[in-house]
């Protein structure tokens, strides 16, 4: 790692100060960890009998995997539907006809502004009213995630197509392509490369938000961890929470790394004329913080 531009190569006093801060930092982190450890220890949460079940295949097979499958099933269904929703509404917002553009814009803006949990609750209660009794946990969760994340994806699609340099569309029109051909053959293929990182980041958000199913009692990983497992293995709340938390973090980090890798790849690639779009302010390579961050 190269030295940061934010501070000089430390001299004797700075080295002393850094050493002191290191000691203090380690002490603070260790104190916090020990506090948590001791607190849980006092409640017997590190006892072997509530941790041993996690070494047995049966626990994973009966409790954790069904929850994980519930989470992944909802995430997969919602991802596919949200992508379709995003592409349809994103392109509709780029339409030349105002009767398509304006309603599509309104739908996207409204669903982006609704708190997701309120939307899920509403769908959860709406379906029994319309269609009679039944378990609508899965439907409500998937539909809510689709409408919200689909709207965000629609904005990404729109930004991606708009980010393709204007010359590309002009050149395509100049060689005699029709509107539909320009979009299908020239703009969208180039935009996809630029959109990929942002799309994958949004799918991480979607995967995380499946945990809202916990609130409407959909059997997902969080429900397994906080309700079903602690009831089955008496008192194992903290072990279950830690195991489930690690699974969530590992899943999302894997997806996040994929997004970062895709972004680097498309930044390098010469096949598209469009720089990768991001949802936030893009990291600028030459900035102050980049050298300091490993």
């Amino acid at each position, binding site marked *: 790692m190269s030295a*940061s*531009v*934010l*501070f*000089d190569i*430390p001299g004797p006093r*700075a080295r002393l100060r*850094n050493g002191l*801060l*290191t000691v203090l*930092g380690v002490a603070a*982190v260790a104190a916090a960890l020990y506090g*948590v450890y001791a*607190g*849980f220890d006092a*409640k017997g*949460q590190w006892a072997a009998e509530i941790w041993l079940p996690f070494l047995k295949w049966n626990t994973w097979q009966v409790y954790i995997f069904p929850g994980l499958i519930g989470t992944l099933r909802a995430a997969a269904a919602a991802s596919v539907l949200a992508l379709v929703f995003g592409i349809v509404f994103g392109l509709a917002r780029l339409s030349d006809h105002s009767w398509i553009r304006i309603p599509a814009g309104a739908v996207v803006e409204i669903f982006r*502004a*609704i*708190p*997701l*949990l*309120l939307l899920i*609750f*509403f769908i959860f*209660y*709406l379906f*029994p*009213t319309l269609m009679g009794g039944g378990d609508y946990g899965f439907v409500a969760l998937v539909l809510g995630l689709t409408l919200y994340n689909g709207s965000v994806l629609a904005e990404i699609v729109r930004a991606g197509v708009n980010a393709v340099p204007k010359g590309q569309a002009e050149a395509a029109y100049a060689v005699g392509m029709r509107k539909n051909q320009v979009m299908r053959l020239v703009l969208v293929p180039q935009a996809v490369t630029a959109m990929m990182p942002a799309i994958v980041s949004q799918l991480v958000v979607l995967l*995380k*938000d*499946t*945990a*809202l199913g*916990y*609130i409407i009692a959909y059997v997902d990983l*969080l429900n397994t*961890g*906080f309700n079903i497992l602690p009831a089955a293995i008496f008192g194992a*709340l*903290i072990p279950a*929470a830690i195991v489930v*938390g690690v699974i*969530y*973090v590992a899943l*999302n*980090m894997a997806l*996040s790394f994929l997004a970062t890798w895709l972004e680097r790849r498309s930044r390098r690639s010469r096949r598209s004329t469009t720089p990768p779009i991001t949802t*936030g*302010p*893009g990291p*600028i390579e*030459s*900035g*102050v*913080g*980049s050298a*300091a*961050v*490993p």
Partner: protein
Amino acid sequence: MDELIKYAPDLALGFLENVKIAAVGAVVSMILGTILVAMRVSPTPVLRAAGTVYVNVVRNTPLTLVLAFSALGLSDRLGLVFSDVPLTNSFWLVSLGLSAYTAAFVCEALRAGVNTVPIGQAEAARSIGLTFMQSLTMIILPQAFRAVIAPLGSVMIAMIKNTTVATAGGYLADSAAVMKITFDQTGASIPIFIGLIIAFMVLTMPIGFLTGWLSRRLAVVR
């Protein structure tokens, strides 16, 4: 429409709870996020590593898990109690849980802002003899904040919408919980749903406009 009028006082009280959580969340998460970003660019490797681990873990954990853990794990098991009144206690647990979660996003937004500050600014600060803390607080962070006003606004809007997840932390007084209780009696009511959405939009849209306007007005001209 009658249902909305009948339940409006309850819903308004619930919505007020969301506003209160959001107010605490905005202040605490901005402070925590600024501390985190200072840690992440600091000269001390241990602090840098601690900040990185915190941000990456918290950012990849569902908010529902964070809030459920702060209620069931921190309060019930660790005995972290803010007040003897259960409702007040869970209000603070939820607000601080939400702040800890949002702080990771504030930190990421600010770090992107730090990245927009040209290297020359930091080099100039060093060459006139400013220490790390001086150059951070007087040169880097002021420019970084101005560069990310709009993204910080988006983070705050997301945070306001996330206050509805307070239910998961056992705080059953916010508007999502009130709406659920109401729907248990009336069934799904479209006017109530629309009413609440409009209330949230009234809160979030001015923030979007204000931060957009401020970011244009305060943009650092380079």
